């Protein structure tokens, strides 16, 4: 964490929710250190053949825009109005009732009025009115219109990269106006001018080339998992044998690469490996990993619809090449929004796959019969319901768990009770955060949609404040010391958030908790959990 970061109390003290005296159209933007991410590396932009790759710096005056940039934006808006009814309607019907205003974690955490979802949308809407509506053309500023300028473009860039596309605002809007959708379109427009952030552009380029955001090459990917094989052997006395790119396997497993790479996601990854070993030993379960489709996440989604499709295509392509029956997906937030709401439409139909059936319980996963991809929480809940896992929840007795609903599975899918069911079966101490902060009302981690860089830490900590505050409540009330989640970005970003606002709370994936409780056939007496920490009763 950067040294010049404010202390938590200082950060809270500077947060003022009273709007400034000058109207937002007349208040200049100040692109402030700690609140923005670095500009995209031109090499990454180029690798994807996206336009206007160049070196530029957000805090410099000259963004080296192409000569005709206004024309490009204008045409870009027009094209998208014709392609997306959502965009057109959301531009037209907002009544500025303000119901969404205090729903955004970035507004709550920063107090910056442009972080009210309605104002974020107005940044773009004002230009839309000016260029595309009769009222805007005639009445100008009175009708809320303003002409496009470089100032406006910079404002867009700054604030559309201060929205995590979490959709909390859309739950409360009486018309369902989804500012995330507006942000998605706005980022597409910015990308037409090469104005991406590097934390998105480079992972996307990596993913295109190597199959995963981190740029892990196939041999290294295998190495990394084999490293976990050794760790697991030490902990359980059992040698698991993951298989890779194996043709003819029943099922293909795809999960975010973040879990292969960094703690505490790695423990979730080890959890998957133990689970699959257990299922193979007991029930002959047959699953393979892929190095080509080695990324569940999709930072293309944060670039443009087209880039999302380009990256997502690997899932079905690989499933087809390997000849599996269906796909099992790991724990990740935006990955599941893409799979659930976009994948079949973009890259389907997956008619070369079979309707998913659990080979262990015989359950037909009706709800994924079209896409042919099942969420690991659904898969696990079904296994537990049928009593197919030998579990010792006592091994998780040293954790008091609460569950963070990731935005995308919550508001873009509705995966709420499956993970809770699983947790309650593998942990004895589970406490919910206050109802207005979970399920469809859940608060974002503050770092989603590609904003989980290091340089924007102040933004992330401000945006994560409402989530942290709710964790703090159960931490103080029930002694909760573990925040469970089903998202790889959460696992990467919640630990620093907790350290900052609620020290003493760790972060875990769902499958890590399961694997800790799972009794493997022939395992040695386990003394530690997957993290190498002593199990309850095993402390010296």
């Amino acid at each position: 964490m950067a040294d010049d970061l404010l202390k938590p109390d200082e950060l809270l003290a500077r947060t003022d929710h009273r709007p400034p005296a000058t109207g937002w159209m007349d208040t200049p933007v100040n692109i402030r250190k700690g609140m923005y991410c670095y500009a995209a590396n031109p090499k990454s932009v180029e690798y994807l053949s996206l336009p206007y790759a160049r070196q530029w710096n957000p805090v410099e005056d000259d963004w080296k825009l192409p000569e005709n940039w206004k024309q490009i934006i204008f045409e870009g808006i027009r094209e998208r109005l014709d392609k997306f009814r959502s965009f057109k309607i959301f531009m037209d019907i907002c009544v500025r009732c303000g119901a969404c205003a205090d729903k955004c974690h970035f507004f709550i955490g920063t107090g910056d009025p442009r972080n009210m979802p309605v104002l974020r949308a107005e940044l773009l809407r004002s230009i839309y009115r000016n260029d595309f509506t009769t009222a805007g053309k005639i009445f100008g500023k009175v009708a809320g219109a303003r002409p496009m300028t470089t100032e406006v473009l910079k404002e867009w860039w700054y604030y559309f990269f201060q929205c995590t596309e979490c959709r909390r605002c859309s739950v409360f809007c009486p018309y369902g106006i989804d500012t995330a959708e507006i942000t998605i379109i706005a980022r597409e427009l910015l990308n037409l001018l090469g104005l991406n952030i590097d934390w998105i552009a480079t992972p996307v380029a990596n993913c295109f080339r190597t199959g995963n955001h981190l740029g892990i090459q196939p041999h290294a990917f295998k190495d990394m998992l084999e490293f976990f094989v050794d760790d697991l052997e030490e902990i359980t006395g059992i040698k698991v044998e993951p298989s890779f790119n194996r043709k003819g396997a029943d099922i293909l497993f795809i999960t975010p690469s973040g879990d292969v790479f960094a703690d505490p996601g790695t423990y979730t990854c080890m959890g998957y490996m133990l689970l699959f070993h257990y299922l193979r030993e007991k029930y002959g379960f047959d699953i393979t990993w892929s190095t080509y489709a080695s990324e569940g996440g999709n930072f293309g989604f944060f670039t443009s619809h087209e880039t999302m499709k380009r990256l997502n295509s690997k899932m079905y392509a690989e499933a087809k090449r390997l000849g599996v029956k269906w796909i099992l997906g790991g724990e990740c937030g935006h990955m599941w929004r893409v799979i659930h709401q976009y994948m079949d439409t973009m890259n389907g139909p997956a008619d070369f796959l079979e309707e998913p059936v659990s080979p262990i319980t015989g359950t037909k996963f009706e709800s994924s019969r079209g896409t042919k991809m099942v969420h690991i929480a659904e898969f696990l809940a079904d296994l537990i319901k049928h009593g197919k896992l030998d579990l010792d929840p006592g091994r998780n007795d040293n954790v008091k768990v609460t569950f963070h609903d990731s935005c995308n599975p919550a508001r873009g899918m509705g995966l709420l009770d499956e993970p809770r069911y699983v947790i309650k079966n593998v942990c004895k101490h589970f406490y919910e955060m206050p109802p207005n902060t979970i399920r469809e009302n859940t608060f974002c981690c503050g770092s989603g949609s590609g904003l989980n860089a290091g340089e924007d830490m102040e933004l992330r900590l401000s945006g994560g404040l409402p989530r942290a505050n709710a964790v703090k409540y159960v931490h103080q009330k029930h002694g909760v010391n573990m925040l469970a989640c089903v998202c790889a970005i959460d696992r990467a970003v919640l630990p620093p958030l907790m350290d900052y606002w609620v020290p003493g709370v760790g972060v875990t994936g769902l499958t890590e908790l399961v694997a800790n409780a799972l009794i493997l056939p022939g395992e040695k007496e386990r003394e530690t959990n997957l993290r190498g920490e002593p199990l309850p009763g095993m402390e010296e």
Partner: protein
Amino acid sequence: MNAKYMFSLVAVIVLFLLAYAGVEAAGLHVLFGVVIPYAAIAVFTVGFVWRIVNWAQSPVPFRIPSTCGQQKSLPWIKPAVIDNPATTGAVVIRMILEILFFRSLFRNLKFHFNEGNRFSYIWEKWLWLGALAFHWAFLAVVVRHLRFFAEPVPFWVQWVEQLDSFFRVEFITDFLQIGLPGIFLSGLVLLAATIYLLLRRIVIPQVKYISLAADFFPLFLIIGIALSGILMRYFLKEDIVGIKEFTMGLVTFHPSIPKNVSGIFYVHLFFVSVLLAYFPFSKLMHLGGIFMSPTRNLANNSRTQRHVNPWNYPVKVHSYEEYEEEFREKMIEAGLPVEKEL
């Protein structure tokens, strides 16, 4: 003083003067009584249809409902049937709840930043109540007005009237006699709710900050409509029979100018005309938009049913072959299976 609402207030006052002076001083009865109302209806109808058609021309490429509850997944997990609809039937119920009862607004949680850095999110129902009162009262008023445009008066209009004047208020003193000809609740509720919505915009700092002149204008206009209507009904006691002859003339395309009708009637009519003509070009189009909002009117079934994007096009992908081509040597060395040996 705030320029945004002053602008809208002044605009509505100017409209008032235009109509009042236009009729009382300049005698433009035909312009304000016949020409402008017809023009307004025409603009409204054409404009409204054009907007809806224009929206409909843009496709819905992806299913993006906002899911506000448990999905339908495993048979033993209870789904939120309405807030996360899996079928068209459930979507219809969701939409009915949104349109008739403002379901989403009902969820409103107000954020408070309390002492000791404690946050709270409290259920806030005033906006919902105010909005509901405003819209239902508006609807009741509109339905009641149909009595002026149909002969005989349809039975359901009479029902609404009866329901509306059910709470009959009688207030008779030596100076002031209201209560006859019966008070309609809707007019008063409409006025009160509109004033509430207006005050909200002026008083709540955040709402004030996001408001545009275009947000104040319809509120002032509707207050103007309600006030002029109330004035005519309870105080000026306009010649109802004459007005009905006039309005029936309008609908049967035999317009004739009534006698004994005051300038306030023309103001009322002009305000309504302005509202109608303004409607298609403004946020008031939320009336149509709410039906077509893709985050609300789609079923959350994209993993079971195929949904086709009409403009889906092939994109440049990085195929497995290209991938293996680049890494083949390393893959073989690591013992990973390959399609093509070296």
